[in-house]
């Protein structure tokens, strides 16, 4: 067993963990430890070999692995960097193949000491950290999350699992596939399967629209003549040892399938792309507050969770649509945890109207300090909308927005002069603009 002390322990080295490490180091945090369960840093970016990353952060279009490489390079070039060291020194230490199994909060008279237990190839690791940044990201929802009936043969994958098998392990597990759900990863895997020689017979979406980007429908489906059917549900999976077919049926406006119009499609593979959910299991025993709207940690404007000293960012707070946004959020967390702030007399909980599903941060704990960034998601499609931010009856900001959709995160930055106007309450309203 090895035991280390550090100022900041980061769990996960995807875009969130790497960005927080860099930003915390820039703001003077000395001993930073990153714990990564894979042999390599970068998280899910390593298997996302397609491009479209980096346009905001690096001002050029990169693939996932290139984005991960750049993020690590920024750390290696600017700070003392140690990979799998025997001792933790000043700078950023990355421990790979190290799986955190338990986090406990020990408050003694002398110090607040958060204790992290992890398993590594060199044995058990105990890390005593002043502060912790939770960056575990998200995981995919599975067939069970959408209550799919049918047997349990081989050949059923989530989009991310088949992406890993094809892009990292070099195996090709499908000849004829049907994809359930039209999220971006599902669309990208439809193209990937086709390029590697499989026939994708259908992408089936239960909603009347796709949650993926239009450009992905064009360049992943239309380019290869892959059919996409809306208002269509999966009603059965057939097969004993291996998937033999799926049954799909059109749904009514209550999403109830019309079985009289069901169709059987033969295939050996079913791929589920039915959404993502924050991976918060690791902290269950700590009782951190989870926002039911995001399924992720509730955070304040410094990205601190409900437990002092525990910060978080990226997809474990709320599922982002772009890695760039994860990076920017986690950089704010790195600054947030490093710079002391003056607390408000009472926290301000943000409220919003019915056109918004959630806002991150959920609350403000500190007096205004620099610009305030709010991330939010709408509940429905609004071709033209007005976003209004109100405090104590005063309109602080009013903005026009076009093409608002639940699939695209809205980010609003309140400059410091406006953030200072926030009083004892804060409401954000998104209203449809009527012409």
């Amino acid at each position, binding site marked *: 067993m090895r035991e280390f002390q550090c100022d900041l322990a980061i769990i996960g080295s995807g875009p969130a963990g790497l960005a927080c490490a860099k930003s915390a180091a820039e703001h003077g945090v000395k001993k930073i430890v990153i714990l990564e369960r894979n042999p390599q840093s970068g998280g899910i970016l390593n298997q996302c070999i397609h491009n479209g990353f980096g346009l905001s952060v690096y001002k050029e279009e990169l693939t996932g692995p290139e984005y991960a490489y750049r993020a690590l390079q920024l750390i290696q070039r600017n700070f003392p960097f140690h990979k799998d060291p025997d001792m933790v020194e000043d700078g950023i230490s990355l421990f790979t193949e190290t799986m955190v199994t338990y986090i406990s909060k020990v408050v003694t008279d002398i110090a607040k000491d958060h204790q992290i237990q992890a398993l590594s190839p060199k044995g058990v690791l105990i890390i005593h950290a002043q502060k912790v940044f939770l960056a575990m990201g998200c995981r995919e929802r599975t067939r069970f999350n959408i209550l799919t009936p049918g047997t349990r043969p081989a050949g059923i994958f989530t989009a991310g699992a088949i992406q890993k098998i094809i892009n990292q392990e070099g195996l090709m597990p499908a000849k004829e596939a049907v994809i359930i759900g039209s999220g971006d990863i599902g669309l990208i895997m439809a193209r990937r399967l086709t390029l*590697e020689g499989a026939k994708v017979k259908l992408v089936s979406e239960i909603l009347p629209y796709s949650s993926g980007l239009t450009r992905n429908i*064009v360049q992943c489906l239309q380019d290869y003549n892959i059919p996409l059917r809306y208002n269509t549900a999966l009603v059965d999976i057939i097969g004993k040892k291996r998937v033999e077919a799926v049954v799909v049926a059109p749904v009514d406006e209550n999403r109830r399938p019309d079985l009289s119009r069901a169709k059987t499609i033969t295939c050996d593979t079913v791929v589920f792309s039915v959404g993502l959910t924050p991976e918060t299991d690791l902290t269950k025993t700590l009782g951190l507050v989870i926002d039911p709207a995001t399924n992720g940690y509730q955070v304040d404007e410094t990205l601190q969770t409900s437990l002092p000293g525990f910060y978080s960012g990226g997809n474990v707070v709320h599922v982002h649509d772009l890695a760039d946004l994860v990076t920017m959020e986690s950089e704010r967390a790195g600054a947030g945890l490093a710079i002391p702030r003056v607390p408000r007399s009472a926290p301000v909980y943000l409220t919003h109207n019915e056109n918004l599903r959630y806002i991150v941060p959920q609350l403000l704990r500190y007096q205004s300090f620099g610009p305030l960034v709010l991330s939010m998601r709408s509940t429905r499609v609004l071709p033209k909308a007005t976003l209004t931010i109100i405090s104590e009856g005063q309109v602080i900001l009013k903005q026009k927005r076009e093409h608002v959709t639940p699939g695209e995160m809205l980010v609003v930055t309140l400059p410091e002069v406006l953030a200072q106007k926030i009083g004892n309450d804060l409401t954000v309203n998104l209203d449809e603009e009527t012409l």
Partner: protein
Amino acid sequence: MKQELICIICPRGCHLSVEVKDKTVTSVKGNACPRGEAYAKKELLAPARTLTTTMKVEGGQTPLVSVKSQGEIPKELMICAVQYLDTLTLKAPVLVGQVLVENLLDTGIAVVATAENLEQNLEPVA
């Protein structure tokens, strides 16, 4: 002749309405920025895409390395290009940005690595 297209250059996805006469684009409407017009012209006359895929690596830490075409290749060559790249096997180490194929299927476009894949057991056994 009138054609409807969706611009795929940025996530906004503008719906373009394009007028084509004698194999030349005479007008583009619906684009929110000039890149949409350039896209429409190219898409109707010579559609091209950036290819991202993987190649096999021998002696590396993992069996594959992710790669991309360093520029766009004709759309109809995408499947062919992947089939061709799947027949090749590289030798570790492969470094980010390393040119792996200089001229992919005579397109004049190179294929470069987008990740690194170093040799297995780099350190001598103690």
